[in-house]
C-alpha cells in the first residue's frame, strides 16, 4: 500500500544532516519517522545504502526501540500513560475503555485509519495523572467518563 507514495527526498535530507562520527543513528531514524510518521522499508534501505551499514543492523535498531513503528500510523495518535502515578490513579480502566470504544487493542490502528492507540510509561506529567496524549497534546486528569468527549474532538467529518 505504500511503495509508490514514498518520497525519498525526505530521507535524503535527513541523511544529509547525519554525522556518523557523532553517534545519533537512532536520532537519524527518529528524523525519518518524524517525516513519514513511521519507518518505511524504502527509507531504511536508503539509510543502509548511504551509510554502508547492513540493513539488518538498521532493522535491529528500528525494532528494538519503542519510538519506532514499521507500519503507517493513524491520522491521530493516542498515547495512554501507564506510568506508576497514572496506574495508581486508575489508568488501566481508562485504557480498556478507549480500547473498547475504538475496537482496537493498544499498539494498533483503527480500520478507518483515524486513530493509532499506544501506551507510554510516563510522560513526566505525573502530578496531574492520569494523563493521555493525543497528537502530542496533553490531557490531564482524565477519567473513564471523559473518554467519549475526548475521542469526539478528533471525529472527522
Amino acid at each position, binding site marked *: 500500500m505504500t511503495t509508490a507514495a514514498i518520497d525519498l527526498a525526505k530521507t535524503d535530507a535527513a541523511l544529509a544532516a547525519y554525522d556518523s562520527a557523532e553517534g545519533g543513528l537512532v536520532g537519524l531514524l527518529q528524523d525519518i519517522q518524524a517525516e513519514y510518521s513511521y519507518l518505511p522499508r524504502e527509507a531504511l534501505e536508503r539509510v543502509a545504502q548511504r551509510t554502508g551499514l547492513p540493513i539488518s543492523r538498521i532493522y535491529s535498531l528500528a525494532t528494538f*526501540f519503542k519510538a519506532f513503528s514499521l507500519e503507517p500510523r493513524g491520522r491521530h495518535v493516542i498515547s495512554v500513560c501507564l506510568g*506508576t502515578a497514572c496506574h495508581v490513579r486508575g489508568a488501566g480502566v481508562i485504557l480498556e475503555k478507549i480500547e473498547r470504544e475504538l475496537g482496537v487493542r493498544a499498539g494498533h490502528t483503527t480500520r478507518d485509519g483515524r486513530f493509532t492507540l499506544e501506551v507510554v510509561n*510516563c510522560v513526566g506529567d*505525573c*502530578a496531574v495523572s492520569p494523563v493521555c496524549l493525543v497528537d502530542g497534546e496533553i490531557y490531564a486528569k482524565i477519567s473513564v467518563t471523559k473518554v467519549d468527549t475526548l475521542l469526539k474532538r478528533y471525529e472527522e467529518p
Partner: protein
Amino acid sequence: MSTVASSTRLEELGRSVLLHRDPTRVVVSVCNGPSCAASGAGQVIAAFRRELKRAGLADAVDVKGTCCHGFCARGPLVVVHPERTFYRQVTEKDVPEIVDTTLAGKGVVDRLLYIDPATGEKIVHEYDVPFYKRQLRILSGNNELIDPVKIEDYIALGGYSATAAVLDGMTPQQVIDELKRAGLRGRGGAGFPTWRKWQACHDEPGPQKYVICNADEGDPGAFMDRTLLEGNPHSIIEGMLIGGYAVGAREGYLYVRNEYPLALQHAAIAVRQAEELGLLGEHVLGSDYSFRLHLIRGGGAFVCGESTALVASIEGRPGEPRAKHVHLAENGLWDRPTVLNNVKTWANVPIIMGRGAGWYSQIGTETSKGTMIFSLVGKIVNTGLVEVPMGITLREMVYDIGGGIPNGRRFKAVQTGGPSGGVIPEEYLDVPVDYEQLSRLGSMMGSGGMIVMDEDTCMVDIAKYFLSFCKFESCGKCTACREGIKRMLQMLTDISEGRGREGDLERLETLANVVADASLCGLGQSAPNPVLTTLRYFRSEYEAHIREKRCPAGACRALISYEIVADKCNGCGVCRRECPEGAIGGERRVAHVIDADKCIKCGACYQACRFDAVRIGGRDHVHASCS
C-alpha cells in the same frame, strides 16, 4: 592556561546582562511547567502581556514564563517578585484583577491566596506556604527566576561563574578533590560517590575521553530530571563543562529521553546560546580548555537508562547492557574512558564549585550529602516536585510537605526507586531519607520518584504492575531476566485473579532470588524488589488473595464487585450519569441497581457517590469520611 582571561570574559558578560536588570524590578513569574501548562498557564501568560499593555505597565513589569515551581497540585502558579506574592490556581480571568490590584496598586488579591488547611489562614508569600517551608531548593529554586530559553537569566543569577573560577584557579585534580570533600553521590540510582568515577576516568591515559549526562529518566512516575532540564538547562551544561575539565574530556553527550520533546528543545537552545557566548566550543571563556556538547535523543527504552546500554545506543546499537565488570571509566563510549552521571548529579557540580565543599557538606546526613529532588505523586494532596535536604523523614515528606492523603483515606505505603525499588509501610515513616536507610528497608533512593499509596492501593497489584513493566522493558538478552520475570508475573496474575495456590508465595520468593542473582544488569537484578518488599511488609494481603480469594484493598478487579446499598441510595442519579457503560438503572428518587453483566468495575460510580451508597464487595475497610 590563560588565567584571568576567563573571569574577565565572564565579568564582561555578566555586566552587560546586569546592566539591564534592576533587582527591585517587578517580575511576574508564571509557572509554565508540565502540569501548569496542562491547566492553562499559556493563556495566563498571554493575558498578563495583554493586560499590562492595557494598564500601561508593559515597560515597568516583566512577565516570565518559567518551568516548574514544584507545587503542581495548585497550578497554574503565579509569583510576583521581588515580594514573592503567591497566587495559586490562577486562570486567565483572574489576570486583570492581579494587574490592577497587585501590579498597578500594591495590594493583594485575597481570593487567590493559598489557604493553609491546618490553620485556615491565608498566606501571602511563597516562602511561608507549608509546602515550600520545609524544602531546601538549591537546585530547583532558581527555576522560577529563569526563562529557560534565555541564557542571560542564568548568567544574571551567577551562572557560569563557577566555570570561570575553576578554569582560572583550579587544576583538574583540585576539582575532583573538592567534589570528594563535598561528598556528592550519584543521583541516578545507586548513589555511587561521584568523585571516584571522575578520578578513575581522570587517571586513564589518552587524549579522547567523554562525559555523558543521563537524562533518560525511565522511572515511570517521576519527572525531576525533566523539570531541571526544561527549567534550567544551563545548570546541567555547566556541570558537564566542569566535569569535562576535571576528567580531561573535550566532548560530552547529553542523552535525553524521547518522551520529553520540550526538554530536548530547551537543551538544544541552551547549547546553541552557550556556543554563541564562547562557553562551549573552542577555548571556553578564552582559556585553553575546549569542550563540545552533543545532544542525543533516546529511542524510548527503559533499559537505555542503564549506563552501558545508554552508551550502546549512542553508538548506534540496540540498547543491550554489558556485564558489570566492564567499567565505563576505562572502556566507555567508543571504548574510551567515560564518565556518566545523572542530570541532578551534574546540576550539583556548579553549586559545589561555586559555594564550596564546606558549605555543601553541611547539608544532609553523615553518608548522604546535599539535597534530593523527589517527585511526590500518587495519593497525596500536594503533588509536585520537592527538594529536601537528605535526612528528612518520610513523615515530613508525606504530611508536612505533601499535606497528607486526600479524601480522608489512610496512608498505606510509599514507593521509592521505581521498578528497582520497593514499598515502605507506615511503621517506617520516621526513618530519615538517605541512601543507606532506604536500602536497609529493601527499597532504594533511586532517581527520586516517590509514589504515595493509600488503603485503596493493593500491594499485589503494585507488584504485578512493576513486574509487567519490567517484562515489557527487559531487553531479552539474558535468560534469568527474560524468562524469570515472565513466570513471576504469571504467578502474580494468577494470585490477583483468584487462581493462587498454597505455596505460591514461597515459589515466588525462590524465583525472585534467582532472578536477582542471575541477571546480567540492574534491570533484572532489581526487578524482584517490588515483589520482595510487598511480600515482606504486606504478606497477609497476598494470603487473603490466595486463601480467601479476596482483595482487601478492593482493587483487583477479578475479586471484587460493585453494589449499591439500597438503604443508603436516595436515587439522585449521579452514578447513573457517570457510568460509562450504562450499567446502572433506576427511577429518580428510588434506589438504583448495578447490572453486573454490564459493569466493567471501573469504579466511576464509587467515586461519584456522595452518600457512600456504592460498596465494593470483598474489601476490608469502609471509609470514615464517607459515612
